[in-house]
């Protein structure tokens, strides 16, 4: 990787798509569009004042979460962050259950008990999100520990932001994961900012991945706005973990297309940086690549987009039509009987 003192995107050459199955490529694109449109819809619902709660959108980071999740098997597990809608959709949480959760409805993936900051669905391997940054890193190691003990060949993947890599529990987790050779992939979504704090104000090294060596695991920094690059990196880290060779740290360089959360205009980001990164929008870039491939007709891509839009509208209808949780459920789900 070149010097990134300016922290502008360095876009590697796009790999040819031929080696990849059409179904995989289509699904990559579909999930990225699904996340993008889902987040835009959520933003709109917030601005209309219809949706309760707080919200951290994952706009712009679709390639990282989709590339990573599609590289995993269905029974692998991920841990999610406060910026978790995209991670959830990428792993296969249903848009209906996710939207209903954001509205705090009984049909939500956490029965309305979690909300935007705690979305997830264990049945698709998405541990409901942990919004205290860094706290999920040892928990991911622990799930990997159980997989190793049982020799299930499953892998855990821990999503976290670059700002999280300065937390003690994150460091403790990487040490334990390497020490005990656990099948876990630490996946950093490096969008350069933790709220308003730029990475250069938070760590004295250039890359989060440099820290991997200190714990005795491989670390790499990759371009995170190309889902194929992320897919390949996660696939090989997961294969390696399954083979018993332990954890890896992958840092994906990407960018938020918006503020940290809904009420943040993000004005602390220099204009030059914003413009350069906005040009790297992963979705049109990937669509252009698909259209250059004979296997994808423009009309098929349009149909796919239309189907996604319809699914999102349906998810809003579903959520709005769903019942609120029974008041008595506030006292449920605390202890196992």
């Amino acid at each position, binding site marked *: 990787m070149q010097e990134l003192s300016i922290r502008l995107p360095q876009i590697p050459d796009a790999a040819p798509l031929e080696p990849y199955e059409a179904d995989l490529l289509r699904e990559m694109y579909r999930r990225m569009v699904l996340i993008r449109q889902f987040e835009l819809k959520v933003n709109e619902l917030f601005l209309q004042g219809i949706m309760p709660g707080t919200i951290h959108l994952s706009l712009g980071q679709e390639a990282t979460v989709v590339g990573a999740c599609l590289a995993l098997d269905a029974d692998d597990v991920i841990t999610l962050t406060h910026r978790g809608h995209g991670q959830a959709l990428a792993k296969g949480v249903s848009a209906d259950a996710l939207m209903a959760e954001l509205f705090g409805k009984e049909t939500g993936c956490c029965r309305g008990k979690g909300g935007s900051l705690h979305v997830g669905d264990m049945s698709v391997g998405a541990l409901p999100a942990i919004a205290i940054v860094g706290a999920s890193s040892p928990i991911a190691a622990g799930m990997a520990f159980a997989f190793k003990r049982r020799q299930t060949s499953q892998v*855990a993947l821990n999503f976290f932001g670059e700002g999280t890599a300065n937390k003690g529990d994150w460091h403790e987790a990487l040490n334990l994961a390497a020490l005990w050779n656990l099948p876990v992939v630490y996946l950093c979504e490096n969008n350069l900012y933790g709220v308003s704090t730029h990475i250069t104000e938070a760590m004295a090294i250039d890359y989060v991945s440099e820290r991997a060596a200190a714990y005795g695991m491989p670390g790499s920094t990759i371009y995170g706005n190309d889902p194929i690059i992320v897919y390949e990196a996660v696939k090989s880290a997961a294969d390696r973990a399954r083979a018993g060779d332990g954890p890896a740290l992958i840092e994906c360089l990407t960018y938020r297309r918006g503020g940290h959360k809904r009420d943040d205009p993000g004005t602390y980001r220099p204009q030059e940086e914003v413009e350069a990164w906005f040009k790297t929008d992963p979705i049109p870039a990937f669509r252009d690549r698909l259209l250059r491939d004979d296997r994808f007709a423009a009309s098929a891509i349009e149909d796919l987009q239309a189907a996604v839009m319809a699914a999102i509208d349906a998810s809003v209808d579903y959520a709005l039509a769903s019942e609120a949780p029974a008041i008595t459920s506030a006292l449920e789900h605390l202890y196992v009987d």
Partner: protein
Amino acid sequence: MLTDKPRASPSSSRELTIVQALREALREEMRRDDQVFVLGEDIRIGGSFLFTLGLLDEFGPERVLNTPISEAGFVGLAIGAAIQGLRPIIDFQYGDFIFTAFDQIMQQCAKLRYMSGGQVSIPLVFQLPTGASGRGAQHANSVETVFFGIPGLKIVTPATPFDAKGLFKSALRDNNPVLFCVHKHLYGSRGRQLAASSISRGHVPDDEYLVPLGKGDIKKRGADITLVANGLMLHRSLNVAEALEAEGLSVEVVDPRCLVPFDTELVIDSVVRTSRLVIVEEGNERGGWGSQLAAEIASQAIGYLDAPIMRVAAPNVPVPFSPVLESAVIPDERQIRSAILELMEH
């Protein structure tokens, strides 16, 4: 056989200390269920109270994991392992070190089930030496008090070998997180001071038994006044009660055994008979479990009381080192005795 009372016949039992009883419980449960494993600092050599002594030889390093000094890390790891169906026990050298993992316990362990709408369960036991033992302020916390107000955890504070073994086995079979807090003076491990009372060493049946979580136990019957105490304070209170018995005052001593869930019914039943209540705990008076119990008795049974509810607890300061000061702060038999006598004046 499942029973929650010590067997009458000592012929089918042995006399053990708490740490021996706990180790026996752990060994039995590890043999019974291969999902159970234990982790902690220096547990290879038995940990700080010899709880895990000899377990490495029997179960091997896969199930007896010596950890780095990394409390937040290995608590989080145990939570993840429990979510995926293993049954970890974390042996803390001292419960005092749990605070470096506070977020993992209060925000993750206690809440993940709730906020996921019941999608996960976390069968995880924390073995926590608690209380003051001559080591100064940072090794003297009444850990149970700090966690008492946090929904989603269960808290056990056994005081006898019989209870410790039966409760520990129940904790290991429970599908919720359980903080198992044993006073540092009660383990009775080699080289450690053992609190003296007639039940600090005790008969533990040879046959298997469980003591259910959430059921208190009347440790001494009495008619004139109800005293509720746990842990080390139970032993001090029993000594006082026995001395007062000889002087003609009949004190009923109730051991809640568990703070969460708390057997309030048992205390109400006792208070209905005695009309007087004193609550003794080692932790700081402000926000202690005794304040919750006092409030519950005041709201549910005040009509039965002939006197105000009296509390004996540490004043609201950290525990000082000087032996003179430590024993001034931690409730002792003299303070317990004068509280009882003062209450009897009403």
